[in-house]
């Protein structure tokens, strides 16, 4: 019985244990400003994972997230001189649109999201290549500071990226727990047929979920572009798998209906800690990837709540 009670808390217990293990090995790791810097750096990834959570929560997946983020790094950089801060709006709308199209193809044309989002990701990547002229671009420093300076920098010793991440997290938490959309999303994830029989427009809810995923991927790309002060069609490469891993490790399995955005925060932090631990334990360069995989298996085995999965596929 006690194990049953611990289960929902396993993700953050896992996180705490990992932090302590690294902390014991090197107390430098535990210095607040270090932890803070680590959290700030993981924010773009976190924001993408946040969006991914919605897609996974309804039992799908969004493989276009990385390409959409790539695209928005380019869009942000290209649009900045003309549109200033409105470039952000263009990015967000672009992300929403690509996500919604993925959602439409998944729900209306019945193409599995694994394939539809991968394909739409291809379109986003082509768009990025076209817009960038297949080059890495950089933002003019003054223009960037004028329009997006607020995204980077510090207040009260805390990086603004953390504020942005926290704000988005709070909005998404609110969305998940306190709105009709969040409730509908839960119903679709946990019992799609019952949601249909309750008169919910399941297709619309799913399309919105994918659109949100696209939008947050776009915001992740935007933030990353501002942070790096430039854009390129490959700039956000390497986001996709860690973002998926973050959602899964956080305890939102692909079966849908379980977990949520708070889990994703924990999952992202677990990924960040595992990644840093490679440095703190001085894992040999050629071994890092293997070690990452093994820790991942252990972490997933520890965090997922199997009681809500009837069949493990």
């Amino acid at each position, binding site marked *: 019985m006690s194990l049953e009670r611990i289960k929902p808390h396993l993700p953050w217990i896992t996180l705490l244990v990992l932090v302590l293990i690294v902390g014991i090995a090197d107390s430098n790791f535990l210095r607040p400003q270090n932890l803070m810097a680590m959290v700030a750096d993981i924010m773009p990834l976190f924001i993408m994972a946040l969006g991914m959570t919605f897609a996974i929560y309804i039992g799908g997946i969004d493989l276009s997230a990385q390409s959409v983020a790539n695209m928005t790094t380019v869009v942000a950089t290209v649009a900045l001189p003309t549109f200033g801060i409105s470039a952000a709006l263009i990015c967000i709308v672009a992300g929403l649109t690509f996500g919604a199209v993925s959602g439409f193809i998944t729900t209306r044309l019945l193409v599995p999201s694994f394939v539809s989002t991968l394909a739409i990701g291809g379109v986003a990547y082509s768009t990025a290549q076209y817009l960038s002229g297949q080059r890495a671009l950089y933002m003019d420093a003054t223009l960037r500071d004028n329009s997006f300076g607020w995204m980077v920098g510090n207040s009260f010793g805390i990086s603004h990226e953390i504020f942005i991440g926290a704000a988005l997290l709070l909005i998404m938490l609110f969305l998940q727990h306190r709105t009709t959309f969040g409730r509908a999303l839960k119903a679709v994830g946990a019992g799609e047929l019952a949601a249909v029989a309750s008169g919910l427009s399941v297709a619309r809810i799913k399309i919105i979920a994918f659109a949100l995923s696209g939008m947050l991927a776009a915001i992740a790309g935007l933030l990353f572009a501002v942070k790096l002060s*430039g854009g390129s069609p490959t700039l956000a490469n390497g986001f996709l798998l860690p973002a998926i891993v973050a959602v899964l490790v956080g305890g939102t399995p692909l079966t849908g209906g379980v977990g949520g955005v708070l889990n994703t925060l924990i999952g992202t932090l677990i990924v960040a800690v595992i990644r840093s631990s490679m440095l703190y334990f001085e894992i040999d360069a050629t071994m890092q990837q293997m070690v990452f995989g093994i820790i991942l298996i252990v972490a997933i085995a520890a965090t997922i709540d199997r009681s809500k999965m009837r069949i493990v596929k």
Partner: protein
Amino acid sequence: MSFIKKFIEQEKVNRRNFLFATAAGVGGFAAAGMFGPGMARAAIQDPTIAWSYRNRTNPYWNEIVSGGEAFVESLGMPKDALVHLINEGSSEKSLADVKALLARTNGDLALAIDTNDAPNARPVVEACAQSGAYVSTLWNKTDDLHPWDFGDNYVSHMSWSDEKPAEETARILLEAMGGKGGVVHLGGIASNNPAIERLQGLKNALVDYPDVELLAAEPADWDTQKANQVMSAFLTRFGDEITGVHCANDTIAYGVLEALRAEGIEDMPIVSYDGNPQAVQLVADKKILATVFTNPHWGGGITAALAYHAATGTFKPSEEPNEHREFYGPTIMVRPDDAIEFKTSYLDNVPTYDWQDFWGPSNGQIQYK
């Protein structure tokens, strides 16, 4: 052939000279740093030395890292004292790893890095500068980012101007084609700067060969398998019209060679880039007409050395001229007649370099267009 010899002489230094130079403190610019005002500055006694790069699956990066390790060994440390940060092609991981390492070392860090994507260079440099660490970059940075804007902490940037050498290989190729026919180009990841420059090199050369047509240029993402497929498709599309292939690097050339081999085509003129050992062997075997060696071993070592010596106060970067802070790396053309000699004296036995002769083999200040 002679220029290779000269180059090797220039870069290679015998052990005795090297020891003498350091002991006597007449190591060129180093002297200024050692006894100059730099000493007054709080130099880092024993910085952690780190190399941050893309991955271990590419021979190019392995060469880079071997240079870094050779440098670390030259300091009397074991080679695993060099910290490896591998970004797996992710700028995000690249930056996060650097930050984590800065945190772990409290900024006592000498970092050599290729930031994976150009825009990533700025935040990396800014983070290092903020923590008081010393950083030297290789290959990727945006044009508006300059070491001299960061005092001492952004020590240097080294890159290669690939346009000229690529133009030279292209000329070799076009000559071999008899100045007529059709050429295809297989490029790197489209947005990568070297990929853009290497294609531009070909285009420059083509101006002088009006009878040669550039049939197509497709990205092959530095990837052997992708190159293989793209070349196969080219063969369908153009068939016998293709009389020469210009490859953006050696790994692409391998894929091209195999695609031709599958068709039983043995004598297609091909040129490539990078001078990997296998490619050099292929040049010796006349399978490839030319490749360009950029000496990644030296590049990897010297980039780490610059960061390290700036960190320990051996020299003070801000007192160096601009051409010592942004400069082109060396390039050597490898052709069939000198490939064997080049290989034995250069690749099979890696020369011992003077890791304090920072700029000797370099190729002048970086020019922006």
